[in-house]
């Protein structure tokens, strides 16, 4: 019987999203919060790529790491596995920030 990974709701006719295993309401909640964080990560990432100022770069790297970790936490709250792309992004910008700070 289909069951939502977040709220535990189950039923024969319960619609579950194939990608996430969440019911429509939980999936919508995840998508709304995820969109905000993803937007912030991408804005900071693209700004960091163009930035030539070291101080600004360090600050942007920290923002990417922080927003990225928030998105990982959101995944965990919804019992979802964060994507490899997200984990790599956090790792890359953490290292980049540390190197720029030296």
């Amino acid at each position, binding site marked *: 019987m289909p069951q939502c990974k977040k709220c535990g709701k189950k039923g024969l006719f319960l619609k579950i999203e194939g990608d996430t295993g969440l019911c429509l309401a939980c999936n919508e909640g*995840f998508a709304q919060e*995820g969109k905000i964080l993803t937007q912030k990560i*991408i804005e900071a990432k693209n700004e960091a790529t163009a930035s030539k100022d070291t101080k600004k770069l360090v600050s942007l790297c920290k923002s990417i790491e922080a927003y990225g970790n928030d998105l990982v936490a959101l995944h965990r709250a919804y019992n979802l596995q964060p*994507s490899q792309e*997200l984990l*790599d*992004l956090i790792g890359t910008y953490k290292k980049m920030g540390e190197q720029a700070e030296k």
Partner: protein
Amino acid sequence: METKKVKDLIIPLTDYPHMPYWGTLREAIAQLNVAFETGHHTVLVFDEAYKLMGMLLEKDILKGLEPKFAQHHEEGVPIMWDHLLKSGAEKQLGRPIKEFMSAVTATVDAEDSILKASHIMVLRNAYLLPVMEGDKLIGVVRMGDLFHQITNAVLAL
């Protein structure tokens, strides 16, 4: 000569401009213009879970800017192309890139040979392929780099 593997030509995803699928065509063009000098002519498109959904290539953008009916004319647009481009494009520029992007239709393994990657690209008409290590996405490989390696090897035969 030992055949190079895909892993020798991997480019990290972070090198490319990233955009969410709800970003607009106008924003994608701005990103590509910023990235133009780095030689990366593709925007990687992500969903709200930061998972790679697809790629927006220059050809996807040019196709998106064409008036709908022009796509049926193989040898140019018969009338008033400039005017149509101007008036039609304004509307298109505000549309989400999800509508224009190329979906990821194939991947290649990091341990595969560059010839296999080249074959997949030709077969799928893909310029960029995601590279997997097991079930992990570790980067992309692009046609230009494969072309360079393969043609150099062929000429040196």
